[in-house]
Each structure stands twice: as C-alpha cells, then as structure tokens.
C-alpha cells in the first residue's frame, strides 16, 4: 500500500508524465494520488481494491462500472456518505472512509445552497459523443443549450478511446477517440464563449417534474461542489437524452469480488487515470469492446492471459482480433468463466469449455492465476429518466434492452423529448455522433430555429447512418431501428 507501482509511466499513445502529487486520507491513513485522479483510481493505485462491503453478507466490493452507474464504490467523503468514488475527484487532504452498511442521512445538505432556476431552450443530458454533437448542432441552429454531465470533463467514453475510429471522413475516421473528444470540446467551448451553450459538469439530472406551462419540461439537477450540492430547477422547451449505457454483468460464483471489472472501468482506469487495473487479466467477450480493450491493456504494459468467448465465433472485427493474435494473445471461442476465486480480491479463475448447447464440458476446467477479470459482455441502455418523462418504451433485444421508441428525428412519443446514442440502442460512437446531430437539429427546428442552408441536413445525416449500418456488422442496429420504427407505426394507426 502507498506505492505508485500500478501507475503507468510510459505509454505509446497517452502522456501520463508530470502529474501533480497530492495527499489524502483513507480511514485516517495518509495516501498519495495524482491531481486528476478520481478517488477510486487513487485508492486503486495505492493498492486499495476493496472500497465497501455488501449490505447483507458483508462481502468485499470494489468498483465495477467505473463511470458512476453501478454504485458498488460508495464511500463516505468528508462526512458525506454514498459518494460514487469512481467519478468523484480526489482533492488535497480529503478524508475518505469505508461507510457502514446503511449510512445515516447527511445533515441538510441543501440548506446552505438555495435552489436556483434556469430557463433554457434545449437541455442535453450526457456529454458523450451523442450529447456533444446534439449540443453543438442545437447551438449552431441558434438555440440556447444547457449540457449536463456527471463527470469532471466532457467527452463521455471518448476520453478513453485511444484507438483510431473506423467509418468515413465525416465521422472522423482514422482519428483516435481521445482526439475526437478534444475536437468536439473545442467546438463546444466556442459556443460557450458566445453564451449559446452552458456546460454544467459534476451534476446529475435527478428527476422529471410537472412543468409550469404545457410546452415546458421541468427537471431537477443536483450540481455537486466540493461534495456539497446545489439543487437547480431546469425549465426547457426540449430535452435530449444522451445518457449512454451501463456495462452488463455475467453470472458466475465470485463475480462480485474486487478485481472483476467492466471493460469500460478497466479502460477508464488505465487510459484516463494511468492506473493499471492489475498485472494479469482474463478478458471475457470477443466482441469489439473486448478485443479493443485487450489490445489497450497490452499497450499499457499489462499481460492479457487470454480472451474467452462463449459463442463459437469471434463477434468483433477480425482486424481487432488479428492485432491481439499477432501479439501472442490466445482467443478461446466456446469458452467461459466457471468461477472466480480469491480472498477479498480476485486471485484466479476457472475457465471452462462449452458444448454446442452452451453447457460446460466436464473435465475441461482450467485453473488460471490472474488478478483481474474484465467483462466485455455487452451493454444496457441507460433509460431511467426517459421512463420518467412518460416516453413509451419497447423491449428490443438487438438494442440491448428497453429503449424509448423514437422516430427518424430521434423524438420519442413525448413531444420535445429526444434520445440519441447508446441510450436509444447500443451501437458505437460514430453513429452516436450522427444521432446526436439529428436530435439537436430536429429539436432546434421544432422550436422554430432553422438556418435555410441547412434544410437538407437531416436527410444527409439519415443517409449517412444507413450507409454505416449497411454491412453485416450493422445488422443488430439495423434490426433494432427497424423494430422501433414498426412499433412507432402501429402506435400511430
């Protein structure tokens, strides 16, 4: 504990040098982290994987999703309980403590900061690729936009995508996700200077409330400030939900041990904070996420023992699999994790071969020592706020679960409520950016804003989406969007 050995020093793509060291307290013990760390990344780098315990069986818990969605990293920070330490920033000399199972309600958090009211044209929830593009497009058409995100910086998952994007020039193909995030942020900041976009970071949209007038949507937003919060009432004429998605869990004994992480969490830890998730990893899932994150683990100097994939076929692009294979990483199709073992944290896993009915083959078990299991087994759209607005939902397996039904303008069944990106169906960043543009453009047009020269824009965007979804790898989103459009049609009849 206390060492910085899990810190990535040299990296072929990212510069982690010259970071300012700061101190903090973990259960009264002085530890060190870096200025840009989250609390969880600083703890992890200092060797602390167990952040809390489960409420009933006292089982150790580490973080899982790493992006503020799963609440397995809740701790008490400077006296405030239930802080999501994976997205809360580290600050000089803060006190971080493991909390009791059910912490008491903190003393009148909102008393010091009276509620503020903000009136705006368009509220955009989530500053990932879809939300950034929606905000920029909305502002470009002349509307005033408020962009709210839970993190310390904009970019969503783009800020950890160190690989070059596919697609065509329009979607910035050949550019790394981290660079796309920078480009979009620069465009955003230009509109911010003109007072067309306001960005509210470290803030959560907590709920949908009855509006004052029929045409207004009202939301509550909590903006955190040094772990104290302020409540905002947001009145908007349109809202675009670009809330992203949540990593899926896989069922096996020991899946809750610290060291079993979602692929997104592993990527955040190593590519945003420069902290190794562990020294030796088993990747579960050979879709594009599993393949890409495995390659990024190698780039960070971490051993990937193997990739296991339950289906008989590698699901991701062959070119991503080939990058791993030529580095000597085996990909075992028709294999899965039977169990993960360890005392307080992952110490190894039992890998097992599956038959054609997905059943484990007896005698094929192999014990593998490792300290990290990385799950890349799909995502589920984040849709809870959409439910609350009353938008009609549909269960679409190809979309990853329940999604809000929407038309080709990305508008849901509630007027003025739009959706874009993964929360409208799991896909990838290139199409999320286009969906964001469609939503931002359509919302602005519906409010009476439209630049004449932009009129064929929506059709261009839709054609571009169709092109990207045309191939065999676009089958799932193609089916998903088709089913959604059919459900919308039957609804209109």
């Amino acid at each position: 504990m206390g060492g910085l050995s899990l810190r990535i020093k040299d990296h072929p793509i990212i510069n982690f040098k010259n970071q300012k060291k700061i101190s903090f307290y973990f259960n009264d013990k002085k530890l060190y982290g870096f200025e840009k760390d989250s609390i969880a990344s600083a703890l992890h780098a200092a060797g602390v994987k167990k952040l809390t315990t489960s409420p009933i069986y006292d089982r150790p818990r580490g973080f899982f999703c790493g992006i503020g969605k799963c609440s397995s990293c809740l701790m008490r920070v400077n006296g405030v309980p239930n802080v999501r330490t994976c997205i809360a920033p580290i600050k000089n000399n803060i006190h971080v403590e493991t909390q009791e199972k059910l912490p008491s309600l903190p003393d009148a958090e909102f008393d010091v900061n009276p509620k503020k009211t903000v009136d705006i044209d368009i509220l955009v929830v989530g500053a990932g690729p879809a939300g950034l593009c929606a905000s920029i497009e909305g502002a470009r058409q002349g509307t005033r936009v408020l962009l709210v995100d839970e993190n310390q910086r904009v970019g969503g998952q783009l800020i950890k995508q160190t690989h070059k994007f596919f697609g065509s020039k329009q979607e910035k193909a050949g550019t790394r996700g981290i660079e796309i995030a920078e480009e979009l942020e620069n465009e955003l900041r230009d509109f911010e200077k003109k007072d067309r976009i306001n960005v509210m970071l470290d803030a959560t949209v907590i709920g949908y409330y009855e509006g004052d007038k029929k045409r207004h949507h009202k939301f509550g937003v909590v903006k955190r400030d040094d772990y104290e919060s302020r409540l905002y009432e947001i009145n908007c004429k349109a809202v675009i939900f670009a809330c992203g998605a949540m990593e899926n869990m896989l069922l096996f004994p020991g899946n809750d041990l610290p060291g079993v992480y979602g692929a997104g969490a592993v990527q955040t830890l190593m590519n945003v904070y420069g902290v190794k998730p562990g020294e030796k990893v088993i990747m579960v899932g050979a879709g594009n996420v599993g393949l890409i994150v495995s390659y990024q683990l190698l780039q960070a100097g971490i051993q990937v023992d193997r990739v296991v994939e339950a289906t008989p076929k590698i699901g991701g692009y062959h070119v991503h699999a080939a990058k791993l294979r030529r580095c000597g990483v085996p990909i075992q199709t028709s294999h899965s994790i039977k169990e993960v073992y360890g005392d307080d944290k992952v110490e190894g896993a039992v890998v097992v071969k599956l038959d054609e009915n997905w059943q484990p083959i007896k005698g094929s078990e192999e014990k593998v020592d490792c300290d990290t299991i990385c799950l890349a087994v799909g995502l589920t759209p984040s849709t809870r706020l959409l439910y609350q607005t009353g938008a009609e939902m549909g269960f679409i397996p190809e979309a990853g679960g329940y999604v809000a039904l929407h038309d080709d303008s990305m508008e849901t069944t509630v007027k003025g409520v739009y959706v874009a990106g993964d929360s409208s169906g799991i896909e990838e960043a290139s199409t999320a950016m286009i969906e964001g543009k469609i939503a931002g453009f359509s919302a602005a047009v519906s409010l009476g804003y439209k630049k004449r020269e932009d009129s064929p824009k929506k059709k261009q965007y839709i054609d571009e989406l169709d092109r990207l979804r045309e191939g065999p790898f676009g089958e799932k989103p193609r089916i998903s969007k088709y089913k959604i459009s059919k459900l919308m049609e039957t609804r209109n009849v």
Partner: protein
Amino acid sequence: MSSYEKTGVLSTRDLKLPSKKHLEKGVAILECIQEIPCNPCVDSCPVNAISMKDINAPPINDFDKCIGCGKCVGICPGLAIFVVKVKDGRALITLPYEFLPVPKVGDRVKALDREGNIRGDGVIKRVVKNGKTMVITVETREDLAMDIRNIWV
C-alpha cells in the same frame, strides 16, 4: 464459418496474393477481408490503387498500380495493412506498431507471425511516425515474407 472467425488468424488462402513481380517492387497487402464500414485507406492512396465498392465492402488493392509507399499502413484504423517487398533474397515488411519501446534503425528484433510465434530474426530498416502509430520496416528471411506481421523489440 471460416476458420479465421474462430481463431482470429488469416491464412494466405484468405488473401489476394501478389505475384513475384509485384513483390519485387513492393506492394501493400490489405489484411481486411470483412465488410466493415471503413474507408480511410482509399483516401490515403496517392495513386488510387485501393478501391472499394461502397464503404462496407472490403478494400481491393490493384497491385499493378500500387507503388508500395506505405501511406495506408499508418492510416488504417484496423492496423491491417502491410507492405511486403522482396529484394536480394531478403523480405522487407512494413508494419504498423503501437508499443513501447520504439525500435531504432539497425536494431535486431524478433520477427513474429500472425499468431505471435517467433519465426526468425529481423533488422529494423526504417522507422516513420504517423501520428502515434509507428510505421516500421523490418528485414527478414525471404521465405517469411507472407508470414511475418509483428516484431518483438
């Protein structure tokens, strides 16, 4: 199901292979055979040798036109393009590389095949930077020309 879909490893049967004449001048081998929506290689080619029916079609390299310049090697987001040239009984393989340490010209490295097996020795002949992707030319045995696709520094 093709075997590469299970293993992640292409065999030379999956690829359009260059003739001896093509190999002598050096040409780009596009190890990208699936229909994925991606086309930067087409735009990167200075002699329009690489073509694509539509954005999802696999790229095709016209070996007669290709000049083996290697521009596409550093551009391809899938790191799936390799320039192979055979000269004086030796193979020169130009490949994309995104690891540390970056080798220097003259360094001796291990030459790895598509499964990461060490198949022989190599000598670094050229190192060019394309953004954060290094485009590295390694010289190795002629008979390994169509097998070596990675280096171990």
